[in-house]
């Protein structure tokens, strides 16, 4: 019995998250809130990967939306019947993830020779190139994108829908959060391993890392590829749950919002990725409410411009006042709290 209590105490974070994930769809069961939850789940995967790249290894990518889009487009095209042949989703998913990961591995070779601002510019260019390709694929609908991508079902459409009584939102929720938990577990493991330590070493001192025998180039390529793998998985889930893709889903603004999520959440911990995503997605939706509200008074704002404005403001506020993000804020509060307890004890 004591062992069980100890175990619960040790894993309290994980257990509470599990319970939260199970309860959330019961409380927020309207289609809109389920959509928001699924969106948070999918984007969390991208941000988790980006957090490995930025937080652990200290590199940056301003073009992850391109990689996100690439896997979504590949699986979409292969499975929606737009080409001469149609593959079942399960096969197109595997093909999409492999092609995207291999391609980003190849891209990583030249692009990670760049450092700092140049790397940011290089990856930004990568994102723009992908976006232009999507927008100019005439057989994929050009700027309008295409729809009719089959939905991914837990155990086949009929069985899940009619026999288990799981609607399409709950079905999406279960799959997305199952994958998210696995990816979170994996990135947590990487964090506490030799590979993770090597990434962190490259972050602070490449020269010291190499004198310990770490092949800096190899590890930079590795972290970029892992982060692309996470992004590719998010991409296929996006394609198969939104059932359609347009180039504007994978624009530069998306890349910037991913980076903003990483920074706002805090790069020092993988929890930061989740918190940043939840925060920014919720802000995104609340902006839509504000837009609706303003339009009642005949003030019309463009939601995309509104978004960019808010991202910029948040970014600046976070960088000035919370350089370690929301996670850093939490750590500060915990520290203050502990100090207060110690002080109280001393006073007594």
């Amino acid at each position, binding site marked *: 019995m004591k062992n069980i209590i100890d175990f619960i105490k040790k894993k309290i974070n994980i257990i509470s998250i599990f319970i939260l994930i199970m309860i959330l769809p019961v409380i927020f069961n309207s289609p809109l809130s389920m959509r928001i939850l699924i969106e948070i789940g999918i984007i969390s995967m991208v941000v988790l990967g980006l957090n490995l790249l930025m937080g652990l290894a200290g590199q940056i990518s301003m073009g992850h939306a391109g990689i996100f889009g690439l896997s979504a487009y590949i699986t979409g095209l292969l499975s929606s019947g737009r080409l001469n042949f149609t593959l079942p989703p399960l096969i197109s998913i595997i093909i999409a993830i492999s092609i995207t990961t291999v391609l980003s591995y190849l891209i990583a070779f030249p692009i990670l020779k760049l450092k700092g601002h140049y790397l940011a510019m290089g990856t930004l260019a990568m994102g723009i190139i992908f976006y232009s390709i999507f927008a100019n694929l005439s057989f994929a609908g050009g700027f309008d994108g295409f729809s009719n991508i089959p939905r991914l079902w837990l155990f086949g459409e009929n069985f899940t829908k009619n026999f288990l009584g799981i609607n399409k939102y709950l079905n999406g929720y279960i799959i997305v959060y199952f994958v998210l938990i696995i990816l979170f577990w994996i990135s947590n493991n990487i964090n506490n*391993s030799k590979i993770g330590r090597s990434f962190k070493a490259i972050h602070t001192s490449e020269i010291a890392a*190499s*004198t310990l*025998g770490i092949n800096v180039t190899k590890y930079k390529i590795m972290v970029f590829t892992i982060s692309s793998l996470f992004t590719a998985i998010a991409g296929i889930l996006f394609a198969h749950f939104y059932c359609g893709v347009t180039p504007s889903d994978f624009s530069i603004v998306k890349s910037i919002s991913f980076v903003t999520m990483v920074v706002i959440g805090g790069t020092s911990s993988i929890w930061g990725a989740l918190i940043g995503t939840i925060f920014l997605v919720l802000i995104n939706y609340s902006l839509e409410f504000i837009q609706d509200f303003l339009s009642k008074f005949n003030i019309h704002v463009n939601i995309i411009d509104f978004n960019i404005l808010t991202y910029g403001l948040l970014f600046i506020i976070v960088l000035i006042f919370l350089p370690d993000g929301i996670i850093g804020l939490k750590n500060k509060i915990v520290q203050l709290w502990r100090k207060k307890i110690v002080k109280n004890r001393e006073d007594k």
Partner: protein
Amino acid sequence: MLKIEKINKKFGGLHAIKNLSFTIEKGPISAIIGPNGAGKTTVFNLLTGVFKVDSGKIFFEDRDITNFQSYQIARLGITRTFQNLQIFTNMTVLENIMTGFYLKSKQNLFHSMFRLNLKEEKFIREKSLELLDILNLTQYANSDTKILPFGILRQVEIVRALASSPKLILMDEPAAGLNTFETDILAENIKKIKDLGVTILLIEHDMNLVMKICEKIIVLNFGEKIAEGKAEEIQKDERVIKAYLGE
């Protein structure tokens, strides 16, 4: 153990290292000294592959390591510490040391991703604590490296270098920025490391320390070797006195 043959290095018009040759034997502590700008750190950077030599050869244990990459040289058993600290400030002291065990640990990405490394991680953790214990740093194991004093971090860097179980450690001004008390501790620690069977080559400005612990001294001036020998010989050498005090 380490043999350098007529290496040259130019930075633009500056001939930083001119026809430098020397050998380091296995065992005794050696030092490279010389006035500022003599090219001491450049020698270290050439030895560890940070810079490439223009001409000449470097041999380590009879193996030509000229123009190897830094990580390849580290794999052969040469590691170093830095004049301006290169501590991984995003990790605790213990994690810094565990990073030093990079070459010894066998896990790959797959092991890391799926937690198949727990046994090895535990082993590395214990080994790291043992190493910290040798230099009496155990109390700092879980401290954040951002808040520790400079003197402690220097020692941590030395332990981290030691963790990669090198045959030769190059220490770049280990006593720079330390007070006399800390320098004494450092001298003790360097002797301890020597007793572990690691050969040490250091660059140092603190002559007391050099004369006390080093058995062989190489003097550089303007990229050239002007003297080589035991402490007493160096102290009497005319060219050395001239280089330090002027004509």
